């Protein structure tokens, strides 16, 4: 009896915390649908009175959102591809070999994870500028973000590779595979889920990337939606409903994708590649 009460209490706490956590998201949706005067009404209304869905089409058109979202997609896809391509091999080696150098490499990888983007951007900017990479600003952002996101990907995918018994690859070696063949034909297919899920997480992060894009992309036609949103918010902004409508258009697809894939993402991260 006390056990069920205990469970209920915990459930209540979880719901409460979830509600607090998700409230800003709700406020974004609610504000987007409010009229200008209702936004500033006191006391604030929790449920918008007159629903005006036309605002989304209006904001999409006036802010040229198609272009911003496209740039976000380009940067996110490019970063994801780069991270997956470079990180998978790295994670594999870090998972399969054990010696001092590997430990040092792992430590450095974790170190990189600690450094914040706002700290890294200055040296990266100077370096990229010297190399002429800033002439291809979206590619420059992809490169910088790849470096930033790599540790996260490597740590996740390394765990996936570690859950695959080395004996499987040894069996493949004896069966006639080369070392690379055993990796490509045995380890890689078995790690597929873990790699896919980690890549999706990287994509989502890159889709919301702001610091590098803001600093490196001056040309407004190449800026992603995060920078576009920032440009929308001036010091004298009163158009909160439009800003929120922009934000809604920006995050809802990602949110929907996450909700749809949520189960697979969680299971892909926690279960190994086997079974």
């Amino acid at each position, binding site marked *: 009896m006390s056990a069920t009460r205990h469970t209920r209490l915990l459930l209540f706490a979880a719901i409460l915390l979830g509600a607090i956590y998700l409230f800003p998201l709700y406020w974004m949706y609610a504000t987007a649908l409010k009229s200008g005067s209702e936004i500033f009404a006191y006391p604030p209304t929790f449920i918008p009175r007159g629903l005006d869905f036309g605002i989304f089409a209006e904001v999409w058109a006036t802010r040229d959102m198609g272009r911003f979202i496209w740039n976000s997609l380009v940067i996110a896809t490019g970063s994801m591809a780069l991270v997956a391509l470079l990180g998978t091999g790295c994670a594999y080696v870090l998972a399969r070999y054990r010696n001092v150098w590997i430990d040092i490499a792992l430590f450095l990888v974790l170190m990189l994870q600690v450094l914040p983007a706002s700290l890294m951007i200055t040296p990266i900017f100077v370096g990229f500028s010297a190399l002429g990479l800033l002439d291809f600003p979206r590619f420059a952002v992809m490169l910088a973000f790849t470096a930033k996101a790599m540790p996260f990907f490597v740590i996740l995918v390394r765990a996936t590779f570690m859950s695959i*018994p080395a*004996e*499987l690859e*040894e*069996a*493949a*070696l*004896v*069966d*006639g*595979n*080369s*070392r690379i*063949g055993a990796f490509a034909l*045995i380890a890689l*297919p*078995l790690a597929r889920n873990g790699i896919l899920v980690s890549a999706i997480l990287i994509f989502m992060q890159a889709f919301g990337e702001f610091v590098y894009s803001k600093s490196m992309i001056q040309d407004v036609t190449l800026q992603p939606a995060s920078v576009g949103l920032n440009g929308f918010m001036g010091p004298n902004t009163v158009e909160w409903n439009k800003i929120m409508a922009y934000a809604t258009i920006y995050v809802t697809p990602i949110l929907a994708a996450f909700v749809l894939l949520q189960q697979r993402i969680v299971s892909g991260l926690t279960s190994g590649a*086997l*079974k």
Partner: protein
Amino acid sequence: MTIQPQIELLSVNKHYGGFHALKDINVTIPKGSFVALVGPSGCGKSTLLRSLAGLESISGGEIRITGKAVNDTPPRHRDVAMVFQSYALYPHMSVRDNMSYSMRLRKASRAEIDAAVADVAAILGLGDYLDRKPNALSGGQRQRVAMGRAIIRNPKVFLFDEPLSNLDAALRVHMRKEIRALHDRIGATSVYVTHDQIEAMTMADHVVVLKSGVVEQQGAPLSLYDTPATKFVAGFIGSPAMNFVGGIVGDTGRAVTLDLPGAPSLPLARTMEPRRQVDVGLRPEHLSIETGGAPGIETTATSVESTGSVTYLYCGGDPEIVVVLSERERISQGDPVNLTIAPDKIHLFDPETGAALR
């Protein structure tokens, strides 16, 4: 006529950093024979097998397969097949694809593959399971698939790394016979690693006993049982294990006095150096209970276990002596017993080196 050796290990050494895992291993394996590498865990038997497969590189010496040195040959060019302890079946492939993986790698034709898979499946009774994934199979079936994956290769050498240790006892006894029967049918050379001396004794033509990276003794299974070269081999081969008691050779060199209460003396079949300290080895199945008053070990039965076919008698306390009796004796706990042994069944070992004294 000399039989061409299939595998030769010539003073093979292996170091892991400062750890000397294999020390000067010399083994010659004739074509078609079944060799067991046996020893306690950590003795280097698996390392030796993996070196044969090419999964580990050796630090010194030479490994030859059919006369060719293969030290620097990668596993795929050694023409060996291996059955792993965990079976190492590819979880993302069906049984058919698991077994034919090596053939697909060498780009064998579709017809060739189908024929070979059908053959092997018939030998192993796997015909109904070809389209299943490994996780839909029982332990015994997985074991067969692992065997099938090796057999289909028709390799020069089969390597087995404790293939039965994940099976239950009844299945293990069954698969033991089956593997040996397969070996006899195929006639390929097999090297079999196990920690179970009974597996080694029952399956192999030639047993290599390893301890801490050293070959303690190798030879035919019964020769290891009858004439163990060291105290370790004597204690390792045979179940229950040989009893060891400290002792000293008598003044005439024709008897040995045991370091037991009452200092019992047992006659020897050969003359030893008088007053020499020895370790005396007595196999449980060689001891018998004497009622006639012949010289033996006077002690008491502390515990009696009867399995129906044999009776285990535990006598004395320090050290305990185990006796296996095939006759049903009316002995119960606490009864005095007089244990005797045929003089030629007594094993003597040097207490320092452990070497057998003959």
